[in-house]
């Protein structure tokens, strides 16, 4: 049955940034599909809320408070996950977001703000992949799901660290996918559009007037895509970035609702 191929029973998924927003939504969706979850984020209290929701679905949830900009903490996260749950089938690199300096004119951004933005959104992905890939290679199976952004595919005004790092996430996805294709490890990327709780700093909530479907995304709408990319149903899909944005990037060259009528001539 086709739907069985979406099941994640017995799998273990590590989700970073799992304390809230899209990360929590993906953790819950993966759990609902059968996976046990290792939830990582900086804030322990938020992780506990995620854990309670995962456990309410009947799955195990290990919480590991982690700052993903710190390679030692990332290594500890992976060691702890393997020690406690024995395997990692899925890595969701979701942690990231706006950082200090976002929205400032470029000449006002400090070196420290630049490094923090890049560390938070790009280096974190690198650290997590570096820590997990040997384990996945050894088992000859694995799914890595990176989370970029529409700003990884297009620019934004006064958007430097975030947009540059997210674009790099799109491309590290490709390089990892090529490198690991022979190891039966699929590496994909989700580029969410506007999800008001997703902490994409610098964005104003505009009620969806600029989104073709007329509304922002809801956190739980990213879950099914994460389940698909984590499951056997997507085993031939690798290196790709999948945009989930209510139609925004399909257009983007006219205002929303701009609908000319031009008759044939000649």
């Amino acid at each position: 049955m086709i739907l069985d191929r979406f099941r994640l029973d017995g799998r273990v998924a590590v989700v970073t940034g799992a304390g809230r927003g899209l990360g929590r939504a993906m953790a819950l969706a993966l759990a609902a599909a059968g996976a046990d979850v290792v939830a990582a984020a900086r804030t322990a209290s938020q992780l506990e809320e995620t854990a309670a929701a995962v456990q309410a679905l009947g799955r195990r949830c290990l919480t590991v408070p982690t700052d993903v900009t710190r390679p030692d903490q990332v290594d500890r996260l992976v060691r702890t996950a393997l020690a406690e749950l024995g395997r990692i089938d899925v890595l969701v690199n979701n942690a990231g977001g706006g950082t200090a300096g976002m929205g400032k004119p470029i000449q006002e951004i400090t070196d420290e703000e630049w490094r923090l933005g890049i560390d938070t959104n790009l280096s974190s992905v690198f650290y997590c992949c570096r820590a997990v890939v040997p384990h996945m290679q050894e088992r000859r199976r694995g799914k890595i799901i990176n989370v970029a952004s529409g700003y990884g595919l297009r620019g934004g005004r006064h958007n430097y660290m975030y947009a540059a790092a997210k674009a790099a996430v799109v491309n590290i996805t490709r390089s990892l996918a090529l490198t690991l294709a022979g190891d039966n490890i699929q590496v994909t990327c989700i580029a969410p559009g506007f999800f008001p709780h997703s902490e994409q700093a610098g964005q104003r909530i505009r009620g969806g007037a600029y989104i073709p479907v007329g509304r922002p995304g809801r956190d739980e709408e990213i879950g099914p895509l994460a389940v698909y990319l984590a499951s056997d149903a997507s085993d031939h899909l690798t290196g790709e970035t999948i945009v989930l944005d209510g139609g925004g990037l399909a257009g983007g060259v006219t205002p929303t609702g701009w609908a000319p009528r031009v008759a044939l001539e000649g």
Partner: protein
Amino acid sequence: MATGLDLTGRVALVVGAGNAVGRAVAVALAEAGADVAAATVTPTTEQEFAANSVANEVWAVGRRNLALPLDVTDPESVRAGVERVAAELGRLDILVNNVDLPYYQPFTEIPREALSRVLAVNLEGVFLVTQEAGRRMLEAGWGRVINLVPLAGERGVVHGTAYGAAKAGVLNLTRSLALEWARRGVTVNAVGLGWTTGLPGPTDHPDRRAELERYLPARRLAEPGDFAGAVVYLASEAAAFMTGQVLNVEGGALSHV
């Protein structure tokens, strides 16, 4: 010229020379040194008049010129037209396909006949002219095909289904043909046209134009002359290693989310 941009001795055929963009491009090619044939897309009185006027402007720049009534949907007209350019101007080095029949309507209201016409002009027209002109370029071992493609071929635009499908078709024709001719001295590229003033079509309406101006990063529409530099560059020896590319000239429209 040291930069390789000089087009002296080249002959260019600009199909759709009569509209504002075609006129600007034809004159720019002439200023860069090329002789220019100014062709219509459809041989209507209005288009023939415009093509004549562009040919006169080319003459005023001091280049040889030809006003060519062409019907891009008629293979015999295309064959005879390309032959006439070669006969009267001696050769054919550069083809600019500014073939444009704008059409925007709600999807379910588009009759089969309109779809056929939109595809026949915007896509098949480019195909036929390029096939005919390209044969001569292959024989000569040097050539430039430059397709002008509006943003509706790159991204979705409401009511632009038939038109955008045709234009997107031209973009991938550009890439495939570039590969096919990559070792034969003929490059095939496109210039992506931002929303432009002075053209018939969706921007030919003050309210819609004002909305676009507020929306675009540059806060203005393109002027027809904004594309001339890209076309002259791609037509020149300076761009010999560039093929299969789309040079988007759109004031930043494709950069933002």
